[in-house]
């Protein structure tokens, strides 16, 4: 045998010996994103007693992927990931998404849409529009509290989702004050916060996704798939839900 064949064998052997990455491994997040405080009380009841879980995603443009992207946006991916993690539970994820809504605008309708849809859990994505418009952070904070109260009054748990990490507009949209407000309201109200900003920053900085590029190789869809999985993980973890072992897990 010549050298080239040996090289091929060595490469093949190396590939076989590499640790097998689970399907979701690219989405893996550090502990500081996944370790989240905050309690869910309605979700475990619905899952364990009623074997169903209705989730309502309330948000703005970053909860959708344009007009035709609904199937690959994170709410749909969340539904798929929850169904995989909780196969015996009837999962239904619905959305109330409109572009350019501030937290104040969403808080004003929160009670009504939560009463209409009767969700067990409201996933509330907000922050970006407020940051773009430069809404007073105190006004933003009050709106968060009002929205959480309204959703809870309608019988739903709440998870907050903060803004996206957007490297190209980082010097132009001052998100930090709004991210801080969301952290502190989440802590005070004992609401889990999905730190989408930190998650996407981690994927960007570790080179997993190039977020500054145009949407080559469908990065946007892959990011939303990971966001949906991470959010499902957060729901299972915060609700202390009994995960039915699925086939693809060792």
């Amino acid at each position, binding site marked *: 045998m010549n050298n080239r064949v040996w090289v091929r064998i060595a490469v093949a052997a190396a590939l076989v010996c590499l640790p097998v990455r689970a399907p979701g491994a690219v989405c893996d997040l550090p502990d500081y994103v996944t370790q989240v405080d905050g309690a869910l009380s309605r979700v475990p009841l619905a899952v364990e007693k009623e074997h169903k879980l209705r989730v309502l995603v309330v948000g703005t*443009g970053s909860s959708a992927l*344009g007009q035709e992207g609904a199937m690959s946006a994170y709410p749909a991916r969340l539904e798929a990931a929850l169904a995989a993690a909780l196969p015996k539970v009837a999962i239904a994820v619905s959305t109330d998404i409109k*572009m350019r809504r501030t937290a104040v605008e969403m808080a004003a309708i929160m009670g009504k849409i939560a009463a209409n849809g009767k969700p067990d859990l409201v996933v509330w994505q907000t922050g*970006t529009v407020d940051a773009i418009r430069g*809404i007073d952070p105190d006004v933003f904070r009050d709106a968060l509290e009002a929205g959480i109260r309204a959703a809870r009054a309608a019988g739903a748990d709440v998870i907050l989702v903060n803004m996206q990490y957007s490297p190209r507009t980082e*010097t132009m*949209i001052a998100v930090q004050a709004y991210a801080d407000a969301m952290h502190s309201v989440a802590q005070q109200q004992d609401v889990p916060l999905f730190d989408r900003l930190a998650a996407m920053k981690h994927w960007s900085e570790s080179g997993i996704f190039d977020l500054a590029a145009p949407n080559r190789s469908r990065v946007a869809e892959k*990011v939303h798939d990971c966001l949906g999985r991470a959010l499902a993980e957060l729901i299972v973890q915060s609700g202390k839900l009994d995960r039915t072992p699925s086939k693809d897990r060792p």
Partner: protein
Amino acid sequence: MPAPVASERDLRLDLFRGLALWLIFLDHIPSNVVSWVTIRNYGFSDATEIFVFISGYTAAFVYGRAMQDRGFLIAAIRILRRAWQVYVAHMFLFIIFMAEIAYVGATLRNPLYAEEMNILEFLQQPDVTLLQALLLKFKPVNMDVLPLYIILLIGFPPALWLVRRAPQLALAGSLTLYLLTWALNWNLPAYPTGHWYFNPFAWQLLFVFGAWCATGGAERLWPVMRSKWLLAVAAAYLLFAFLVSLTWYLPVFARFMPRWLSELIYPIDKTNLDVLRFMHFLALAFLVVRVLPRDWPGLNSPLLWPAIVCGQQSLAVFCLGVFLAFTSHFILVEVSDRIPMQILVSAAGIVIMVGVASVLQWYKVVDGRRAGPKPPKKPGAGLAGGEA
């Protein structure tokens, strides 16, 4: 009796203002690994406090001499002319910023960022937005320091007059304004909603305190500052702030933060110059003054010269720093955002700042406005080394 004005410029001021300008530049580049060296990560206060304090100190030093030699009116006009220069510089940066936003908004081509593409939303009403920008009510990200400086300068002529006549009264007045601001929520309105990010009614305290130190206050404080106890208290406070700051970045430590303590100290309000920030700055400044004497020979060493020369040309270097931070971010996003590139743009930015500052300083010297300890030929004509 007007308080005596120190005759020789304190190079420590230029050194630390230069360093503060570098840190502000580094902090303004988002996602930059080099910004881990900046002081905001190791305590409550950041480079802004240093910049505002030293600006107040040098303004009192330079315009105080003018007020002594030429009278209130000439000094006041000189201060207001400076405020106008800062205003024009701010508007120039605003135009550069608009150009960058317009470019990025037009080239964001990713369904992921459908929302962020609305960043140009405010340009849909250019009549309102541009007018609000001229009124300093509309201020883009990271462009809040110069408007603060403008307001502080506009209010400075009477403040300087009082600081020179009755320094204790001036400081008490400044403190009263600060406390009233906290009690009554005073601030200037911003556009479209909200308030100024740096509340001038609160931040004036640092500026006036700087001016007070420059007009004899530092000497009056000296007996107190020699106390070993005070040194221990300052060091303990800095250590406390450092430990708290660890919990912000290292989640491992976050669990050691007692809930009652976080409820007590958070939020640490930058807008209104939180008293924790002010005390942190005082402790830092105190430590520096104790460790570095005014006649420390190192101040003349070529190693520190790059920071000193930047501190002496502070307005130009500050504006350049804001511009370079935009440019660095642009390069990081459009070319490469890897760590070597982050280090490269950070270092290149500082080199450019030093280069421009040294050309300006050199020009100032050959143009006849001699820098250094020599007294100016015409009364009040020289700026005693640097600028206000």
